[in-house]
């Protein structure tokens, strides 16, 4: 990574441009339903710089981006464009002020061509008021050429393009709007390594033309390779804005989490026991291929890999949602046929799924109904559900996990993300599992709840539970796991023990496997 090289060039530390900052935020605050998600945040974006916006999930990054893009309106504070206070009532106003966004989920029209997508809503017209197809195609070609994307066919339908190509179209679309600021929300989250390199080249190219980039990413190497300055948010507060040359990775992490990293992840307690779960050449179609590993009681096994590398699919195969098409799953050394989630549950396997809202919870129901759901058979009196015990069970979970709720009858959809996750955990721990699979256990929840869940995982492992953890957050994988498996293309491509699982080594395997898959 070329850290430091960019800091000296175009980056605007020079006072000459300070009166014409593309965006300046002054003491911006925003609340939702009485909860302050962004509080008194001030920073500015200078022409031609890459400004990284960092923070944990729930730190307020998305809200800040949406305020800049005109999707949300700040409750307090000012936004200045070129030194003038502006009010963005809608994304349209932000566009007019030269601010464009490349969203995480790309917002293109798959059935339209590349050129049509680039100029949608700003189509060049002829004197007659009709679409000037000729001009549109010429300008689309020019724009893409200027992004070094000579290979993109402007007449192709977007539906047939890869994610990386679609992203370039989004960028071209922003340039067609004469954007002076381009907000990129986790642009590399879904990209293969080759596309990441290409995107970084485009970002540098844009900066050289004076476009300012607000770059949101969790990936440290990109931040150090691209960014000139970095702004860190934590719990909606502005922690600091610093030149990248003044920080290192550890410093950034501690700024983001507000404590030192070794206090964040609790240490291992106790020794590993017998093998709880063993997979022997387990496959499911083409998404899970020949997976073999074993998991011991008391162990936390981390499953790392990029999105789409087959981690969740492996979990679903173990849990009986998509039973294996070949291979053996052994629980306590005995081969088992796990053909459904109830079969998995009856073997003492619990799965806390990735998509909390869709898979984990029935949001329209109460906490007690949700906690009872996986455990109805144990909460019966005769043939009836014992309502008193259902409530009792929920009360226990609320106390045990510190769920902040009015009571067992409160609807789950009224809870915060962290508390919802604790309800999912409560539901599954009520089944007394011996093997716990946690898929993105702390995605989208605030820092405090995150630490609580990490503590809980350690405690459970200490009590002898076997835990398989899937996480896309590398620090979490490294901090929590006793052992790390890296997946790519549906296979296990590497294994690291605690001592050898470094960010560089695991990260390299994650991306290498991805390139291998593409080849």
């Amino acid at each position, binding site marked *: 990574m070329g850290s430091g090289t960019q800091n000296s060039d175009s980056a605007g530390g020079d006072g000459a441009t300070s009166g014409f900052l593309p965006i300046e935020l002054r003491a911006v605050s925003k609340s939702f339903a009485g909860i302050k998600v962004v509080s008194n945040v001030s920073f500015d974006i200078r022409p031609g710089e890459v400004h990284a916006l960092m923070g944990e999930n729930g730190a307020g990054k998305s809200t800040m981006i949406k305020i800049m893009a005109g999707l949300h309106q700040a409750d307090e504070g000012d936004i200045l464009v070129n030194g003038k206070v502006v009010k963005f009532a809608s994304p349209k106003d932000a566009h007019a002020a030269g601010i464009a966004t490349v969203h995480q989920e790309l917002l293109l029209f798959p059935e339209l061509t590349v050129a049509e997508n680039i100029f949608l809503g700003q189509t060049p017209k002829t004197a007659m008021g009709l679409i000037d197809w000729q001009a549109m195609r010429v300008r689309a070609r020019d724009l893409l050429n200027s992004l070094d994307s000579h290979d993109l066919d402007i007449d192709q339908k977007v539906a047939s393009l890869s994610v990386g190509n679609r992203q370039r179209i989004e960028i071209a679309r922003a340039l067609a709007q004469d954007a002076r600021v381009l907000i990129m929300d986790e642009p590399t989250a879904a990209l293969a390594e080759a596309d990441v390199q290409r995107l970084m080249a485009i970002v540098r190219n844009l900066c050289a033309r004076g476009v300012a980039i607000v770059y949101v990413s969790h990936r440290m190497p990109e931040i150090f390779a691209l960014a000139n300055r970095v702004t860190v948010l934590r719990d909606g507060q502005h922690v600091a804005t610093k030149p990248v040359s003044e920080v290192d990775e550890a410093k950034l992490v501690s700024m983001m989490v507000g404590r030192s990293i070794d206090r964040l992840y609790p240490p291992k307690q106790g020794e590993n026991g017998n093998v709880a779960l063993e997979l022997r050449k387990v496959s499911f179609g083409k998404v899970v291929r020949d997976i073999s590993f074993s998991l011991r009681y008391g162990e936390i096994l981390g499953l790392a890999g990029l999105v789409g590398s087959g981690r969740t699919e492996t979990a679903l195969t173990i849990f009986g949602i998509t039973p294996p098409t070949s291979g053996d799953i052994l629980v306590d050394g005995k081969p088992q046929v796990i053909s459904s*989630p109830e079969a998995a549950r009856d073997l003492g396997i619990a799965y806390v799924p990735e998509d909390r809202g869709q898979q984990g919870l029935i949001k329209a129901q*109460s906490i007690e109904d949700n906690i009872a759901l*996986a455990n109805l058979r144990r909460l019966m009196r005769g043939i009836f559900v014992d309502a008193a015990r259902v409530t009792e069970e929920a009360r226990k979970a609320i106390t045990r996990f510190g769920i902040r709720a009015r009571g067992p009858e409160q609807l789950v959809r009224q809870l915060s993300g962290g508390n919802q996750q604790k309800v999912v955990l409560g539901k599954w721990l009520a089944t007394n599992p011996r093997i716990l699979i946690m898929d993105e256990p702390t995605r989208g929840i605030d820092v405090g709840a995150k630490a609580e869940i990490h503590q809980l995982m350690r405690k459970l492992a200490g009590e002898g539970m076997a835990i398989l953890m899937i996480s896309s957050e590398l620090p979490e994988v490294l901090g929590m796991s006793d052992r790390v498996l890296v997946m790519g293309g549906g296979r296990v491509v590497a294994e690291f023990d605690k001592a050898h699982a470094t960010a560089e080594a695991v990260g390299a395997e994650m991306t290498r496997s991805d390139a291998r898959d593409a080849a």
Partner: protein
Amino acid sequence: MTLSRLLRHETILAVLTVIALIVLASLSDKFFTTENLLNQGRLMSEVGLVALAMTFVIVTGGIDLSVGSILGLTAILLGVFWKNLGLPLPAAIALAMLCGTFAGWVNGYIITRFNVPALIATLATLALYRGLAEGISQARSVRGYPEWFFFFGQGEVLGVPFQLWLLGIATVIAAVVLGLTPFGRATYAIGANETAARFSGIRVNATKLWIYSAAGFLSALAAVVFVSRVTTTRSDMGTGLELDVITGVVLGGTSIFGGRGTIIGTVLGLILIQALKNGLALSGVKGDGTIVVIGLVLIGAILVGALFDKNRGG
């Protein structure tokens, strides 16, 4: 699941039903007589039996449009088994009901096995089962059943029509199963979020199969009562029944999107509709007028329900 929350719609409905009964009683002195009310109960039983199962179906987020056709098919099979195949009548009844239940199971199988939306699957079987009924009957009706058979549709026990007892018992069973058992919990869970239910180890497909089979069974039971009441079997029996049934269930506060609804609500909805039909007819309102009133009541009840829902807050 707090009872007060679930009962809110039912409370409104109960008040509405009482008001309707008072108004109708004041419009016609023939309405509020024991004889008339019991007779209305008799007329409501067939729709009522099917509506119990339909409540489960709709609570899972599904729908069963084929219940009227299953009723017609069962009725025809009953007649054919007895008259044309010469089976003893009790055996014919049992076999016909088995076929009706199987027809319901087939609905469930198509829906769960091939992931076909319930609306489409049962729209297809609505046509299929009715077509079978018509093909088998060859447009001939079956009559001449022995006297004892008419007990199911016309007889009385302790002064109350037999089918009202049947409906009463079925209602209690349905209410207990939906409200108090793990099966009921599973039914609500599937309707509120099928994926989460599956991920929680709920046997989603098995639950649905049971429910659609039960819809078939209760439609078949309704068919026996119907044939016994009208003393003849015709292939067009039960045409349009599904709409009366669904109207009752939805009026009873069951969410068409699934996840919410109660048996008490369904029963209240049925009573309200039957009372309106009968009361308005007795007070000289023509058939078309009655349908308009029922439509308005349905819309009104749903609007009031939505209003309360909003007030309850996010």
